[in-house]
């Protein structure tokens, strides 16, 4: 049978190679002898007959080579011998090998590292079933042109929920910090308030217990909580009876009804560990003013994003007509959740890095190809001899290719090591606080895909750039090459041209990379050094939420913070301390519509907003925010005194472009609060380093105490032990 014979021949060839070689030699010898005999019979002298027979036969070596090719198992043999030879060649010139492998390792390693992030953040789907059908609702003001994630007011959300036909589930949520006081030391745990169908919309099933029920969205039934698996294991020691257990949140009793799987992660919410349903009374349900909810939905099967987007826009238009006071120019857009998470992660920047690093790899490959070319030119004699011995061109090219692939694979292997270190380094550099917003907590797994990619590009580049020296040896004149004095590297016209081509393109690419990198670094430096507006070194931030049932009246809250600040200020290392409801780069903020008293009221939805916070004495001095005009909040701005407010430059510029703001009155109409402006301070960066500062209003915490404050304490130098001291003081 044909294939059996083929197999037998192959195995034969592989296993008994030397014997087969001997046999072949034997056979040739016999053939030539037979021919010689015949010639002798026809009268030729013996010696001449033998010579004649040999000449007739032709090149024995070339012919043996052809036979070998026919025999089968050939390519495997040649691969093996090519590898052995290639290794020997590389070992013989360790300098070249080291430089080439290192160059490639850097190029390939950088690519692998960036690719692992591209893979984890952009390519891999989110860990929910059919995650590409999850759409985030963004609000968009058609007149002012902004788009924001903080979509809806309660009433708007409920309308969308009831009137839509495109979504299986429409859910909403907001970040919330919980004060967990039972089962351990008091802790502020980050989490979220969610609509009852939040987990159902994501498609996540708790591993213990259940998700929320519709009934739990009512006030009175809403003191239930779902915990993350991590919290369950760390705080509750993986108590098997956790379901039904009571915990104390915000000073009140909540019942645990579910535990989520270990790999659950909702990056838009950050690192969340506790979830509780949003419970609204009728008044809150009807509120259309405050936009504090973020919403997303799961598309029904068969519904496209465009269809759903059109429907949402229609509903928004309807709401605009019905409620012009609150909804004018307000519409909603849909964006895939993957994209929104990607924006948080800086997906764009990662892609830019990807291309830059790709260019770097090109440079590295060109470099190595150059080196290989130089070496190949020096080996022209070797190729000539091989050709004379019967090696076909294809054979020589295969040999060179194998050598090149060896080099590139070694580079790939070392590169993978570099990449692993690089990725670890990047991970460690990501601040703890923002890890929750990154897919997989900022870890880029070096998984199978990454390794396939690594070796893929190693082999791909190795093949392409390895063919360069191979084709250089294409037009080889054997006798010319053999005649050259040994060891002299000629180049030949074509080789020199290729060399010049490489050098030119490398320089070009390097320039591109340098310029792009310089631009990126410059913009980063610009952002970081432009100035935050305050001095952030050596400032400790302590975030507190006071449980409402313990300190319910405003004066109790005020006294608590006064007391706390006094104690903290008394600590030896603390230079100054103050508190603010919301701090720059904090987790939350409050925006209110402001209006200067005495001016005509603004059109619906044309109101101007400002960031609002209440600050205690010494906040500005602790943060070292310079005063520009007037005065800061002082002791006299206490309860009973006229409401005093300090505004920042941007607010002053926006509202009082041509006049002195000091003495003017500003109000938040919805809260019916009026302040007299007493001072103007410098702008402070609020959320990101690159955004423009927003208008800011600072009220006095003595006059408007808040249970939720962040205490800032400035110390002489970095003193982590102060944290414990502050905690005790409180």
């Amino acid at each position: 049978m044909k294939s059996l014979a083929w197999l037998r021949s192959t195995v034969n060839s592989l296993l008994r190679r030397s014997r087969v070689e001997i046999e072949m030699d034997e056979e040739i010898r016999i053939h030539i002898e037979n021919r010689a005999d015949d010639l002798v019979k026809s009268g030729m002298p013996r010696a001449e007959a033998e010579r004649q027979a040999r000449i007739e036969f032709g090149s024995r070596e070339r012919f043996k080579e052809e036979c070998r090719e026919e025999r089968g198992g050939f390519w495997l043999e040649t691969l093996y011998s090519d590898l052995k030879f290639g290794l020997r060649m590389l070992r013989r010139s360790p300098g070249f090998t080291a430089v080439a492998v290192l160059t490639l390792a850097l190029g390939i390693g950088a690519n692998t590292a960036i690719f692992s992030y591209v893979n984890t953040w952009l390519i891999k789907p989110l860990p929910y079933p059919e995650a590409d059908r999850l759409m985030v609702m963004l609000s968009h003001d058609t007149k002012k042109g902004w788009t924001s994630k903080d979509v809806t007011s309660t009433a708007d959300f409920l309308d969308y929920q009831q009137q839509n036909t495109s979504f299986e589930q429409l859910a909403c949520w907001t970040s919330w910090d919980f004060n967990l006081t039972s089962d351990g030391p008091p802790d502020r745990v980050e989490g979220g308030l969610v609509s009852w169908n939040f987990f159902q919309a994501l498609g996540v099933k708790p591993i213990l217990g259940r998700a929320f029920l519709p009934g739990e969205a009512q006030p009175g039934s809403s003191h239930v909580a779902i915990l993350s698996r991590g919290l369950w294991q760390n705080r509750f020691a993986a108590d098997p009876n956790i379901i039904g257990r009571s915990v104390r949140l915000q000073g009140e009793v909540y019942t645990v009804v579910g535990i989520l799987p270990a790999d659950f992660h909702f990056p838009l919410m950050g690192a969340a560990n506790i979830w509780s349903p949003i419970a609204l009374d009728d008044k809150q349900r009807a509120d259309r003013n405050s936009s504090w909810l973020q919403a997303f939905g799961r598309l029904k099967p068969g519904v496209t994003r465009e269809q759903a987007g059109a429907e949402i826009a229609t509903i928004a238009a309807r709401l605009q007509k019905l409620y012009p006071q609150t909804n004018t120019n307000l519409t909603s857009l849909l964006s895939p959740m993957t994209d929104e998470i990607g924006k948080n992660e800086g997906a764009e920047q990662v892609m830019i890095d990807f291309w830059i690093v790709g260019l770097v790899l090109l440079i590295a490959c060109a470099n190595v190809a150059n080196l290989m070319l130089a070496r190949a030119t020096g080996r022209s004699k070797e190729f000539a001899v091989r050709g004379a011995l019967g090696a076909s061109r294809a054979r020589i090219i295969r040999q060179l290719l194998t050598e090149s692939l060896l080099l590139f694979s070694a580079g790939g292997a070392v590169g993978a090591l570099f990449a692993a270190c690089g990725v670890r380094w990047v991970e460690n550099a990501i601040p703890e606080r923002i890890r929750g917003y990154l897919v997989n907590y900022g870890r880029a797994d070096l998984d199978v895909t990454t390794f396939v990619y690594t070796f893929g590009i190693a082999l791909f580049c190795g093949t392409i750039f390895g063919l360069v020296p191979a084709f250089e040896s294409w037009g080889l004149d054997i006798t010319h090459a053999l005649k050259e004095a040994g060891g002299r590297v000629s180049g030949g016209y074509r080789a020199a041209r290729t060399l010049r081509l490489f050098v030119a393109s490398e320089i070009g690419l390097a320039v591109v990379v340098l310029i792009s990198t310089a631009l990126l670094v410059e913009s980063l430096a610009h952002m970081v050094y432009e100035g935050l507006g305050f001095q952030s070194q050596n400032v400790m931030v302590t975030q507190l939420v006071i449980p409402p049932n313990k300190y319910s009246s405003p004066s109790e809250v005020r006294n608590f913070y006064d007391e706390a600040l006094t104690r903290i200020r008394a600590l030896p290392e603390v230079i100054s301390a103050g508190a603010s409801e919301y701090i720059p780069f904090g987790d939350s903020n409050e925006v209110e519509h402001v209006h200067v008293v005495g001016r005509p009221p603004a059109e619906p939805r044309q109101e101007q907003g400002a960031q609002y916070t209440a600050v205690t004495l010494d906040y500005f001095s602790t943060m070292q925010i310079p005063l520009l005009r007037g005065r800061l909040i002082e002791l006299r701005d206490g309860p009973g005194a006229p409401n005093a407010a300090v505004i920042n430059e941007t607010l002053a510029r926006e509202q009082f472009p041509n006049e002195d703001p000091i003495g003017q009155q500003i109000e938040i109409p919805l809260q019916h609060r009026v302040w007299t402006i007493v001072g103007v301070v410098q702008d402070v960066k609020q959320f990101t380093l690159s955004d423009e500062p927003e208008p800011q209003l600072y009220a006095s915490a003595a006059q408007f105490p808040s249970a939720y404050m962040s205490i800032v304490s400035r110390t002489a130098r970095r003193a982590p032990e102060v944290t414990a001291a502050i905690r005790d003081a409180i």
Partner: protein
Amino acid sequence: MTEQAQVLPGTLDLLILKAVSLGPLHGYGVLLRIEQISGRALLIEQGALYPALFRLVRQGFLKASWGTSDNNRRAKFYELTLAGRKRLQIEAHEWNRLATAIAAVLGARPEEV
């Protein structure tokens, strides 16, 4: 003497199979026999012979074994396998068909077109 024709590539295998079908032969013998039967009209290039023999062995049409030749030398003898015999039949048939067709084309007279 008659002009010696070049062996068309691809027909070498056919000739070898036929030569060997008349009795086991070593490599040189195959050469001689083809020359002989064709009345010295066909000359095999010596370098092409052995690769073709190895190829036919690999394909399973020939079987090789060492033995003694008639002048008392050790030689590798090739003989036809069952598959080889079948192959010979098919190839010969194909060749004849081809030859007839070509002859028909070449013998066409202007009136017949």
